[in-house]
């Protein structure tokens, strides 16, 4: 026996059934103990509510132009001031925020789906499937994805639907790092005894993946989805800031910040309102993501002080491996989006 195993003892004999805590409740309890994560969750819920109901309260629509009051600082009519052409900053920020959120969620969902399909398939089937998928992954890591997205955005759909294309592209180009992690997890699950047992029972491969592999990496996928939303929001705002994302007359937090940047330092409010919202939004998403990861990861430190030293060994499979190089591949160490700084999408293996 080992001290590290002791806190696992409460789940023992099914016959005795004292006060036993289920996995879901345990996870919830660990999550709730993380104050930052709870704060983040409240923040996101609040932001979403504001994004939905806020426009009804402001009195201005985001495309209204109050020609009489351009570049006015915050006042009783325009709570957050106005832009050069007299658009209401509050309405614009709300609109931009909901745009950024929708794009973030859509892109993260897409890339999580892609990474789980590619990751599990390449690891489980092996052989040429694996070689082809890994090669594609390597190729996409070599290509500076932000540049390609930029080109496609510049030459592709313009106007109101540009954001759909942007969300699609962010999703299509954002799965590689997680795909690799999923692959390495699947590789370790593949030789788990229950997976072998299913195989020797005669289950076809796709059913084994669906029933036995995906459910067992679901916690990674949940974490990836949450953090992916943060990355996607940063990616979207970054591209929009550069003028390669959401197109006028549509607005996102990125376009607003870009607009505000040229007016700094004289007209701070045009820059500050969307920036503060953006930072707050990403902060909330990331703290929820971290909180979920720590709550799901039995070996995590941040789950709380209770339990003492971390347990080692098994149970770590739910955590993305921090990359020491796998043989022969490209860039496990970081993401490889070469046009982004390390806090924009796919950058930094965190």
């Amino acid at each position, binding site marked *: 026996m080992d001290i590290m195993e002791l806190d696992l003892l409460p789940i023992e004999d099914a016959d005795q059934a004292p006060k036993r805590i289920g996995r879901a409740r345990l996870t919830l309890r660990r999550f709730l103990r993380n104050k930052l994560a709870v704060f983040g969750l409240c923040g996101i819920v609040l932001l979403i509510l504001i994004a939905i109901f806020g426009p009804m309260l402001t009195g201005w629509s985001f495309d209204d132009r109050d020609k009489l009051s351009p570049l006015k600082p915050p006042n009783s009519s325009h709570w957050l001031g106005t832009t050069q052409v007299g658009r209401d900053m509050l309405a614009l920020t709300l609109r931009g925020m909901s745009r950024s959120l929708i794009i973030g969620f859509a892109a993260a969902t897409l890339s999580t789906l892609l990474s789980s399909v590619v990751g599990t398939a390449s690891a489980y089937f092996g052989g040429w499937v694996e070689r082809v998928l890994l090669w594609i992954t390597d190729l996409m890591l070599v290509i500076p994805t932000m540049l390609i997205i930029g080109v496609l955005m510049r030459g592709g759909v313009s106007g109101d639907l540009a954001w759909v294309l942007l969300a699609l592209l962010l999703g299509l180009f954002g799965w590689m790092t997680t795909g690799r992690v999923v692959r390495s997890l699947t590789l370790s699950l593949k030789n788990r005894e229950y997976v072998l047992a299913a195989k020797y029972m005669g289950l076809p491969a796709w059913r084994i993946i669906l029933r036995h592999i995906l459910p067992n990496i679901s916690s990674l996928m949940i974490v990836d989805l949450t953090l992916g939303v943060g990355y996607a929001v940063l990616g979207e705002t970054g591209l929009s800031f550069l003028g390669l994302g959401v197109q006028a007359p549509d607005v996102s937090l990125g376009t607003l910040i870009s607009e505000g940047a040229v007016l700094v330092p004289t007209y701070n409010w045009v820059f500050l309102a969307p920036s503060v919202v953006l*930072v707050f939004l990403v902060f909330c998403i990331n703290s929820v993501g971290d909180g979920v990861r720590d709550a799901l990861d039995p070996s995590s430190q941040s789950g709380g002080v209770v339990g003492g030293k971390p347990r080692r060994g098994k149970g770590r499979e739910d955590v993305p491996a921090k990359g020491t190089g796998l043989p022969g591949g490209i860039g496990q160490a970081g993401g490889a989006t070469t046009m982004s700084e390390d806090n924009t999408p796919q950058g930094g293996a965190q």
Partner: protein
Amino acid sequence: MSGYIIRRVLNYVVLLFIACSFAYLLASSFLNPYSVYFGRQPPVDPDVIENIMRGCNLSHEVSLWERYTTWLTKIFTEWDWGCSPLRVSVNEQIGVRMWVSLRLVLIGTLGGVIVGVLVGAWTATRQYRVSDRVYTGLSLLVICTPSFVLGIVLQILAIKANDAMGVRFFEFVGEKGVVGDYPLAELVDRLQHLLLPTIVLVLLTAASLSRIQRNLMLDSLGADYVRTARAKGLPKSQAVMKHALRTALIPTGTYVAFTVATMFTGATYTERVFSFPGMGQYAVQTILAMDVNGIAATTAFAGVCVVCGAILSDIVVAILDPRVRLG
């Protein structure tokens, strides 16, 4: 061994070739270089435009395949990566900007790495204390702040500081400005211009690296061999420094090696905010300027950086980890 290395390099070359071709073909079919000359006053004669386009191998009257092969031939025979629709040579641009980026990125990343590793390792040993929580919160905040927001905020602060001091100490436009006539004036000027963007890069690198380092440290603090080290009589602090930190540096090393290489083109937003004429800014400009050749060349450059990063991180891990070196 050598066979393996050759195979791997060959694979990289193929990957790079496909990546560049992909970028070239994509940009050629999606972008319209002619539009650079649209709406000019006075209007430019369409024949003149067509001539320029032909000269730059961008003409839409030539088939895409022919343009592609011409493009390839020029690269392989003359190492000429072409020119922009405004007839600026891509080779020249990259030749200059590369070094501008290097200057910025190397200092920024290395500074960030040192700060990040130290802060990460230190906070890990002080887990749950107030200092740990403060630094962890701060690094999370920096990570959540996009670099362009961080850069602009620094600009605002710099303007305030300049106003308060009455001297233009902080420079935030470009990489060089008006040079005074005192000794080393040029160096001082360059450093002044480097200061703010470097701070941005240091903050960003340090923030994410300190989080990674902290997690790695926490993992290795609980490792059996740290317990062994204490069991043989090392006090806790020594066991941590000699055994836990040394092991936790292995993954950091690979991460850093990779980051340094890819940061070459990685400082897009910082360069953009501070109008720093580096590779990152060039990448954005090529897209905005419909510069097909520039885009393809930037892709190649970025691809080479990724490949170098991958190789570099392998080398670093081999140096740091005997299991890899001798295994």
